[in-house]
């Protein structure tokens, strides 16, 4: 048996990827199961999905704690999620990134495959949905399932949901990713620091349950404390304001769901720590002073 853990963000389709991979293995006569795990959070929040493949019936129903392969659909998750957690000694990480495996910084050197699935998806699908391209990379990196079966599984699974043409385009994205995947070894030495959670005991809870703003070891809690949650890494596209064109009408300031636009000397200024890249500001600006650009991250 081998086990794969997918790390993605809600809305990126990690669950569909896990399911399509299971289907591809099934088409090759294997037993395969897959399921997602997510908390109460929305699109953009870290989510996990799992796939198990075996030659015999699979009876384990638990989450996967010691994966053979880890798939990372969104590179920024490496900062916030312990992606190497429990990875087997000779396990491998497959990451969506423009970097080469040797340039990827992790907490220890591990076998690593990389592919720029976002660019492939944008080019072929016109949308930054990377869950099919990454499947091609998994096929290449692991050699556990053929790219033909991956393509068949994608056409069957995505085709049924999105129509035949979309199914075929997604299969093509997987094929292109398959051809472009690089396999090597990552860098080590970048220690992963897990975020502390503040979970008070009953005695620590204020009577009546009311919490003001508290500074704790884990950071701010209570009133206004979401300010510490930087949502900027959800973004694929970044709004760039042309200050010359901006007439200071404040429409973007009013409409931005994040409230992360402020007016500096009457010109719109975006706080990129929070901007999720939705594109509403660019769509609504009456003088087209905002342009959404593909974000390039260090």
């Amino acid at each position, binding site marked *: 048996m081998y086990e794969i853990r997918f790390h993605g963000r809600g809305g990126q389709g990690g669950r569909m990827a896990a399911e399509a991979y299971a289907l591809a293995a099934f088409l090759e006569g294997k037993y395969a199961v897959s399921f997602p795990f997510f908390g109460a959070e929305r699109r953009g929040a870290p989510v996990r999905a799992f796939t198990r493949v075996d030659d015999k019936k699979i009876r384990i129903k638990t989450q996967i704690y010691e994966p053979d392969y880890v798939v990372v659909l969104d590179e920024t998750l490496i900062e916030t999620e312990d992606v190497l957690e429990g990875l087997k000694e000779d396990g491998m990480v497959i990451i969506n990134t423009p970097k080469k495996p040797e340039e990827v910084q992790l907490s220890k050197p591990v076998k690593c495959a990389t592919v720029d699935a976002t660019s492939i998806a944008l080019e072929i699908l016109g949308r930054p949905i990377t869950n099919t391209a990454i499947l091609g990379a998994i096929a290449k990196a692991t050699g556990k399932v053929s790219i033909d079966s991956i393509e068949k599984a994608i056409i069957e699974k995505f085709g049924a949901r999105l129509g035949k043409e979309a199914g075929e385009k997604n299969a093509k994205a997987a094929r292109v990713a398959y051809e472009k995947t690089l396999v090597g070894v990552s860098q080590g030495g970048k220690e992963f620091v897990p975020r502390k959670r503040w979970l008070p005991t009953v005695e620590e809870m204020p009577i009546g349950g009311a919490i003001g703003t508290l500074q704790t070891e884990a950071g701010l809690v209570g009133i*206004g404390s979401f300010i510490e949650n930087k949502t900027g890494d959800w973004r694929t596209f970044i709004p760039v304001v042309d200050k010359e064109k901006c007439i200071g009408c404040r429409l973007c300031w009013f409409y931005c769901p*994040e409230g992360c636009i402020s007016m500096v000397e009457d010109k719109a200024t975006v706080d990129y720590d929070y901007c999720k890249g939705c594109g*509403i500001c660019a769509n609504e600006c009456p003088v087209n002073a905002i342009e959404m650009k593909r974000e390039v991250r260090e």
Partner: protein
Amino acid sequence: MNIKDLPEESLFTPGHTACAGCAAPAIVRNMMKIFGKDTIVYTPANCLLVFSGTYPHLAWKVPYLHEAFENTGACISGVARAYRRKGRKVLVVGFAGDGGTYDIGIQALSGAAERNEDAIYVCYDNEAYMNTGIQRSGATPYGASTTTTPAGRKIPGKLEHKKDMAEIMRAHEIPYVATLSISHPKDFLEKVKKAKETEGFRYLHVLSPCPTGWRFDPSKTIEMARKAVDSGMWTLYEAEYGEITNIYKPKKKIPVEEYIKGQGRFRHFTPEMIEELQRWVDRKWERLYGEKP
């Protein structure tokens, strides 16, 4: 009242976890700017609660309470009375979703309205139970595909039309009822201000386009709200003590087809279904404007 009259300071922080492009955070942030800091907020279970109040974090900078799904009306009644008893002037506001308003919360809401409690009830209407994964509600429009009305061989999406909740509230003859759209800032802000200044029970109903549940590109959220108004799918008006006092009329009415076009939940629509939805819009239009569209 216009955008430029709004204070800079926000009582709703960034860092919340709503989907990119969600209309709800912009709606509550701008409403809170007018309600001000002497406000206490109640929210039942819904997306807003989960993206702005997941323990131990909170996006609100005012006292904020989470209550059960069905009793927003009862909770805001009790708190408003407690403050009155204490002689303190605090604005009590409940923010509930359409599921929490049209369906499960309607009894407590109707009771609070009938007793004319001194509180504001805001329904942000994203036309389904989004937090639990897009189930149909009484607010879901005809034909929309949701996880409990999946368009396919058996049914073509939801079989029933949207319930007219604002009209039900108007029939309570409360001091103030208004329908709002974030795409019309001046109208939106004036209504929020009016609600704040009115005493007794006030009901604000705002359309809240949801890119995840309606399946459209997140950059189009405001455009969707605007098209909802321009097509007559969403109508803007105010009523005081049951009498309509102000109606907004779109300059040019667009066909519903224009509105449903970019939304995945309507993707399966046949010409007959479009006609059915258009007939519903036209009936509503005629009732409100007293003339054929």
